[in-house]
C-alpha cells in the first residue's frame, strides 16, 4: 500500500518541481502576472524552442523555420566544415535583400562599429561623401573647405583607385575604410572625371572634417536677389539659414533662392524647422508608419521669414530632408522648384543593435509630402525602376556639362534660370504696383 502511494506521488512531485523550475524567475521577481502570462504562452514558446514542424509551416514564422531547417542540414551534412555564424549572417542579408529596400541592411559587428564611428564624427578623412552608383564608387560631393575640396575633388568623380589599388566591385564602406586614416597622413585617389580622357591622380592629406552648413550669395545686387545654399541638415542649419538671410537682408534682399543642390539631408526636425521659415501654417511632412498610420508634422508658427518670392534649387543629389523641404514649399505653393528631379529618398531608418554587437537598420517609416506624394524611388526584384520618386521641379533645367564646380556661376544654368525667373517676378510686381 505504501509503495503504491509513493509511485503515485513521484510523478506529481516531479511535475511540480518542473513547474517550479519554470516559474522560478517569476517567483523571484514576485510577479504573478508575468507567471500567468508565461503559462499562457507556454505552448507556443515551447514549440518555438523545439522548432516543431508546425512552426515552420506557420506563415509568420516561415523565414525562421526554413532558416533553421536549412542550417541544421548544412551543419550536419555539408561535405566541408562550415562556419555557422557566417552562414547566419549570409541568411540575414539574403532575407533583408528580399525586401528590395537598400536602406534596410544588416551590419556585422565590424561594419556596425565603423558606422558608429561615422555617426560620432571622431574620424579623420578627406571630407567627401561617397555613393555607389551602378557598381561604381562616386563622389557624392566634397564638403566645402575639406581636404578633398581643396585638392580639387569634384562631385560626380568616379573613384577608380585608392592608393593605386583598384576599388572596382568593392562596397562603399570598404572604400571608405581605405580612404580613412590617421590625421595628417596622405591618401592618393585615382579619379575618373566626366569629359576627361585621362585619369586624375590626387593626393589628399587626411584631416578632421568639420562641415560648414550655410552660405549666402547676392546674385543680383540691384534687384536684391539673394541665395542661401544649405549643404546639409544638421543642428545648426536653421540658425545659420536665418543668419545668412539676415546678412542678405542687410544688403537689400527682395527675392530668395534656397539652394538645396547636393544636400543629402540629415535631421528631420531640422527639415521641419527650415520649412517653418517659409511656411507659416500647415503640414510640412507626413510620416507614414507601418500599417499606414500617418503622423502629420506641422510648421511651427511665427517663425516664417518675410514672404520673399522664392525659388528652390534642387538636383538629383538633393535627398531626404532636402526633398521634404522642397516638397512642402511646392505643395504650399510657396515657391517654385527649379533644377532636376531629386534623389528619391524619403525613408527613416531605425537601427536596432543585436545581441552579438551586430545591428540591423530597418526602414521604419516613410515621408510623404503634405499632398500625400510618396518621395521614394522604388526598384523591383530585377533592379528595374518601378517608380522614380523624388521631387520633379516645376522648371526642369539640366546642368551644363561644362560646370566644373558648384561655385562656377558662369556655367550654372540652373542658378541662371532661377535668377532670371525672380527678375521677371520682381519686374512684373513692379509693373503691377506702378499701375
Amino acid at each position: 500500500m505504501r509503495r503504491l502511494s509513493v509511485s503515485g506521488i513521484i510523478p506529481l512531485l516531479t511535475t511540480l518541481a518542473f513547474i517550479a523550475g519554470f516559474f522560478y524567475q517569476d517567483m523571484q521577481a514576485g510577479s504573478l502576472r508575468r507567471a500567468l502570462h508565461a503559462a499562457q504562452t507556454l505552448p507556443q514558446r515551447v514549440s518555438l524552442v523545439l522548432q516543431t514542424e508546425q512552426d515552420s509551416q506557420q506563415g509568420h514564422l516561415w523565414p525562421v523555420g526554413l532558416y533553421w531547417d536549412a542550417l541544421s542540414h548544412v551543419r550536419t551534412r555539408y561535405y566541408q566544415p562550415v562556419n555557422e555564424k557566417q552562414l547566419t549572417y549570409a541568411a540575414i542579408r539574403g532575407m533583408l535583400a528580399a525586401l528590395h529596400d537598400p536602406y534596410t541592411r544588416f551590419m556585422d559587428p565590424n561594419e556596425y562599429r565603423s558606422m558608429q564611428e561615422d555617426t560620432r564624427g571622431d574620424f579623420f578623412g578627406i571630407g567627401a561623401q561617397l555613393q555607389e552608383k551602378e557598381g561604381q564608387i562616386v563622389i557624392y560631393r566634397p564638403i566645402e573647405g575639406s581636404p578633398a575640396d581643396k585638392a580639387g575633388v569634384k562631385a560626380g568623380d568616379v573613384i577608380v583607385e585608392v592608393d593605386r589599388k583598384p576599388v572596382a566591385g568593392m562596397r562603399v564602406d570598404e572604400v571608405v575604410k581605405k580612404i580613412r586614416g590617421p590625421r595628417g597622413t596622405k591618401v592618393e585617389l585615382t579619379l575618373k572625371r566626366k569629359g576627361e580622357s585621362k585619369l586624375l591622380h590626387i593626393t589628399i592629406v587626411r584631416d578632421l572634417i568639420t562641415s560648414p552648413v550655410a552660405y549666402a550669395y547676392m546674385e543680383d545686387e540691384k534687384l536684391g536677389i539673394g541665395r542661401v545654399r544649405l549643404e546639409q541638415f544638421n543642428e545648426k542649419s536653421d540658425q545659420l539659414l536665418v543668419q545668412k538671410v539676415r546678412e542678405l537682408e542687410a544688403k537689400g534682399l527682395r527675392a530668395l533662392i534656397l539652394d538645396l543642390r547636393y544636400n543629402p539631408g540629415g535631421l528631420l526636425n531640422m527639415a521641419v524647422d527650415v520649412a517653418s521659415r517659409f511656411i507659416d501654417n500647415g503640414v510640412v511632412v507626413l510620416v507614414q508608419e507601418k500599417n499606414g498610420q500617418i503622423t502629420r508634422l506641422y510648421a511651427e508658427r511665427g517663425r516664417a521669414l518675410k514672404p520673399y518670392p522664392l525659388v528652390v534649387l534642387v538636383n538629383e543629389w538633393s535627398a531626404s530632408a532636402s526633398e521634404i523641404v522642397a516638397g512642402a514649399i511646392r505643395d504650399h505653393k510657396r515657391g517654385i522648384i527649379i533644377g532636376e528631379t531629386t534623389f528619391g529618398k524619403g525613408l527613416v531608418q531605425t537601427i536596432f543593435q543585436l545581441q552579438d554587437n551586430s545591428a540591423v537598420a530597418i526602414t521604419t517609416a516613410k515621408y510623404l509630402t503634405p499632398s500625400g506624394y510618396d518621395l521614394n524611388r522604388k526598384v523591383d526584384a530585377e533592379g528595374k525602376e518601378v517608380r522614380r520618386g523624388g521631387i520633379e521641379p516645376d522648371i526642369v533645367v539640366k546642368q551644363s556639362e561644362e560646370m566644373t564646380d558648384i561655385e562656377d556661376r558662369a556655367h550654372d544654368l540652373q542658378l541662371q534660370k532661377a535668377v532670371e525667373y525672380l527678375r521677371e517676378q520682381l519686374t512684373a510686381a513692379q509693373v503691377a504696383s506702378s499701375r
Partner: protein
Amino acid sequence: MNVLSLRRVLFGGVLLVLAFLGGWWLRQQMAALPIASAHPSARLSSLEEYSPQQDTPTPSAASENISPISMDLMQLFYSVYKYVEKQHVEYTPELAKPMAYGAVRAMLQSLNDPNTRFLDPEEARLWQEAAKGTYYGIGAVMTVVRKVTEDVERRELTVVAPLPGSPAEKAGLQPGDVISEIDGRWVIAYDPFLQVRRSGARGSELVKALEEARKRVVAGLDLRKALGMLTNKDQPPMTLTVRRGNTTLKVKVNPSVLRVEPVTYRLMADGLGYLRIAQFHAETPEALRRALAGLGNGLRGLVIDLRNNPGGSLESASQVAAMLVKSPTLALMETRQGETKRRQPVTINANPRVKAPIVVLVNRGTANVAEVLAVALRDKANARLVGERTFGDGLIQTFIPLSDGSALTLTTGKLLTLSGGDFHAKGVYPTVAVPTAQRLGQDLALERAVGLLSARTTTRRAS
C-alpha cells in the same frame, strides 16, 4: 531506514532536482526568444535614427549547453526577422516567403559551392522529376564546374551529358560543352570587376574595362536564371553559344519534355548482348532486371553502354551494381564528421546475374555514380573500359526537401573508388582508348567492344 528506502529517497530527490532544472532550463530557452512585446517602437526624430540601447533580447547563459547549434544564432536571425515584421514600413505577410527563400538561398550561396543550392518549390519539382527520368527543356544533365584561371574563379555551366533522344542531343551538344551564352546573353561565369581589378589595367584602358564589365553584368544571366531557361519546356527555341575545347560554336536547341528510358537492350550477332543504361533513377533497377531476363542466360558477352550516363541516385546505382558485380561494396563515400572526414563503404547486396565477359563503354558524359559503377565493373567483374576518359564528378548532391515544398541540394560527400581512388575533376581512364563520337552512323567504340568480346570468346573456345 534501510538501504533500499534511502536509495529510493535519493532517487526521488535527484528526480525532483532534475525536473526543477528542466523547467528552469526550458524557461531560459524561452527567455532567449523575443516575443512580440520585446519590440520597441521607433521614435521619429531623425532620418537615420540611431538607437543602440534598444530593448533587444539578451542571450541566456543556458543556451550554450542546449545543443551544439547555437541558440544565439537562431535568436539573432529571429530578432532581425521580428524587427522587420514589426517595424518595417512596407512589410506585408506576403513578404515572409520571399524573405525565407532569400535567406536560405543566400546562406547556401555563401558556401561558394555552385552545386549546393536552394530550390524553390517549382525548381524542386523539376529536380525530382529529373531524378525520376523526366526532363524539361533541353534534356541535358548540367553541372557547374569551378575553375581558377589567372587567379579568377570561373563557374562554368557545363553539359555533363545530353540524354538520349533529347533536344540537346539532336542539337549536337556534347559532354563537357560549356554553355557561355543563351541567345547572345552572357551566362555570368565570373566577377568581371574582379578580373579587371586583377588585370593590372591602367588609365583609359582601365576605365574602358570597367565600363565593359558593368555592361556585361547588367546584360548577363546569372546561373540560376540560365538553368531556369534551359530547364523550361515552354522556352522558345534558343541559340546557345558553346565552348568546346578551344573552339566556340553556336547551337540551336528546341526545348521540350523528355522521358528517359533508363535501360535499352538488344541481342547482337554471335550471342553478344548490348545494354545501355542511360541514367540511374528509381526505375532503373527494375528495367535492368527485365533487360537481363530479355537477354537470356546464354550470353557469350555483354556490352554495357554507360556513355552519356550522367549518374543519378546512388541507391539506384547500388541496386544495379548488385546485379552485375560480385562484390560486397560498390565504392567508398567520404563524408564529414565534425571537423574531420571519414570514409565509409557503400555496401551492396551482390547477386550478379551476368556470367559472361563484360565490356563497358564510357565517355566524357559518363559521370558520378556511373563512373563508380564502371570502375567497380573493371575491378570486380574483370570488365574492360572502352572509350574515353570520363567526366570526373565524384561529389554527391543530396536532395533535402524542406517543409514547404522547397528543397536544398547539398554536397554531402564525395565518391571514391573501392581502392580509395579520387576521380573527381580527373575522370577515369579507359582500358582501351577509342573516340566515341559516332561518325556517319559508325560506332567505333561499340565495334571495338564487340571485337574484344569476340576475340575473348574465340580464345576461350580455342582453349
